[in-house]
């Protein structure tokens, strides 16, 4: 006798909760044979706003976590991903991936998570400097996270094209609001479930699903978002995001990379979402008559 399968309800992820979209709307995605895979939340502008609020609320706390602690949490994400490896492979295959590609994608996702976990307490030393100013001051520059980042994930990838943008943002102490791939949204919500069991504070990563044509605007023009990250090559979308960025001088970073390449990860993706802060303080008696060392 066959058992009736329990179907998963795919919801969105805001502030550590899994609400449905406040709009009550949904859209359906289908597999290659036209069979409906699931009803996906068609998030609204209001969902994006809620997500930004959650991201802002937790920003200070996440940025102030010790770098070592952030590193451990990212590593914990990798552990949780590993435990759900088969689930991701299954979801990737439902969405049209071959088994070999699905395995490659989840393995790279896990390894990339470990890669960025390692960066959490190292990029600071590479991106910071002590500056030999001519006056009697101790002067140094450190990097600090840019703030709340809106991320437009790669439309042609369910998992790797999304995590490749999220990881450098949160490794660097930013919080984010992510718009998942419209046509391949399944892994984004499963990834949210991973995050939710990884000691990542609520609100550091928020994920919404829905229509790109509708949601790019609120993702790009929210006045409490400090930077927008985009993966893809759609010139109209890029132009639109850059225009929306103007009203509060958002930083806009666009990438058009093959995320399945192992090389598509680096220190510079972290530094793209960092601000350089330079601090000056006087030094007593440097160069004066009392210098005697």
């Amino acid at each position, binding site marked *: 006798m066959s058992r009736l399968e329990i179907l998963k309800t795919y919801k969105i992820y805001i502030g550590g909760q899994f609400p449905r979209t406040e709009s009550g709307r949904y859209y359906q995605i289908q597999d290659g044979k036209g069979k409906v895979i699931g009803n996906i939340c068609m998030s609204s502008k209001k969902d994006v706003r809620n997500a930004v609020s959650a991201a802002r609320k937790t920003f200070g706390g996440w940025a102030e976590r010790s770098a070592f602690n952030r590193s451990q949490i990212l590593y914990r994400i990798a552990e949780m991903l590993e435990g759900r490896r088969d689930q991701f492979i299954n979801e990737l295959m439902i969405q049209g991936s071959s088994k070999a590609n699905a395995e490659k994608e989840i393995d790279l996702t896990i390894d990339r998570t470990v890669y960025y976990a390692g960066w959490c307490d190292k990029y600071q030393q590479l991106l910071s400097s002590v500056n030999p100013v*001519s006056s009697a001051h101790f002067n140094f520059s450190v990097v600090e996270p840019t703030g709340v980042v809106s991320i437009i994930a790669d439309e042609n990838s369910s998992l790797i094209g999304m995590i490749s943008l999220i990881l450098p943002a949160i490794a660097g102490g930013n919080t984010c609001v992510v718009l998942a791939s419209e046509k391949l949204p399944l892994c984004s919500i499963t990834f949210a479930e991973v995050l939710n069991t990884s000691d990542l504070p609520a609100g550091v990563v928020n994920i919404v699903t829905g229509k790109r044509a509708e949601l790019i605007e609120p993702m790009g023009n929210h006045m409490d978002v400090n930077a927008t990250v985009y993966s893809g090559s759609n010139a109209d979308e890029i132009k639109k995001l850059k225009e929306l960025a103007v009203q509060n001088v958002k930083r806009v970073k666009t990438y058009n990379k093959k995320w399945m390449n192992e090389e598509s990860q680096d220190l*510079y993706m972290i530094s793209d979402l960092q601000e*350089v*802060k330079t601090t000056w303080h006087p030094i007593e008696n440097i160069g004066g008559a009392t210098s005697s060392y």
Partner: protein
Amino acid sequence: MAKKTDKKISSWDFSPSPEGISHIELKDKYDLFIDGKWVKPSSGKYFESINPSNEEKISSVAHANQADVDKAVKAARKAYNGVWGKMSGKERGKYIYRIARMMQEKARELAVIETLDGGKPIRESRDIDIPLACNHFFYYAGWADKLDYAFPNRKVESLGVAGQIIPWNFPLLMAAWKIAPALAAGNTVVLKPAESTSLTALKLAEIIEESGLPAGVVNIVTGFGDTGAAIVNHPDVDKVAFTGSTDVGKIIQKAISGTDKKATLELGGKSANIILEDAPIDQAVEGIVNGIFFNQGHVCCAGSRLFVQESVADVVVKKLKQRLDSLYVGNPLDKNTDIGAINSKEQLQTIKKYIKIGQEEGAEMYQSPCSIPTKGYFCPPTLFTNVAQSSVIVQQEIFGPVLTIQTFRTVDEVIQKANNTPFGLAAGVWTDKGSRIFNLTTKLRAGVVWANTYNKFDPTSPFGGYKESGFGREGGLHGLEAYVKLS
């Protein structure tokens, strides 16, 4: 020279001590510097550069139009493809060193022209603007053959033609901040100085000509906003670097949104200067004065919002008023002068508009009783107390010698107030306690934080803002990133 009239402290007067102007060489009329030659503007138009301290004309300057900008960009492209883009870093560096040295040789002349043209006190142009400008070239010269060390694990390439637009508050220094790193990284340049302060950029063009830098590597096109727009919108410009107001910065960001042009924007500010109760008060008062009255307050990072802890507010404000009364406002060429001329008639009107708004908002105003020259554009140093976070004069950048004063009780409160602005350029913190300094400097969302000092600059020290104060850094290792492509 204006004499002080305030009876309270006018126990001494200064004898006038003006810097001589006989040794400077200025032409009656300046053309555009394009492709290593001085060329007439295709518009045939020239505009006057005015001495803001006496409203007299100093010289005429060419107004470049779109055709001139196109000519300059073509020259820059030709120089990039033909010479500069291919030259070894070592040779590029030597040219930049040579420019730095020649600027040093002419430093006094440059300082006097800067003061004549822009109105800033000769003490500042002589001791700060010009030396820093020279040092900036000298500093970046040395990077030209060491770029591979700056970006680990990456191949470093130049971008191409950089279009650069600079403001009128630090004319030569801003030209140096823009040109030096661009050249060091192997780019060629089209630079537009601000219309009210073109002269030191044109003197720099003469130095560049004299240095033998290949034709077209640096082109200086003078003009107004239309000239700047032509640079920003030129399709063959690879990089736009702008220092100026947030409003214009946004126009530029929008203008290039459909392109792949790389941009650096160094925009406005409304920086907090925070005095805690354990601060060395007399030093802090000097820091407040330097923070807001340096260069007549025409400083993007000016400490224009003062926050004083309630327990010391009375004494700080009292000492500040006393200090205000002793500031010398007058002839910028006089070595005694603390506060020179406001850069232009328009800017003086803007400042006066804000002073009026402040009074209408119900804030309490204090101005130094100093006498100011009858000719020229001058504004006495001005304080406003009894202001709110929501006051226009607290929220908007005035870009003049106007300080708003607020009080606070706790450190958390002042952090919140200081950060409650769309800007994020700079901040100052005054306290004797080290751990408190780092608490504040860490939590203030600003690109430059001065602890127990203010308005210090250095070529090795990265400068630039958070939030709506712009993006990208100028100065230091971090300033190179704006002019390179990594692969």
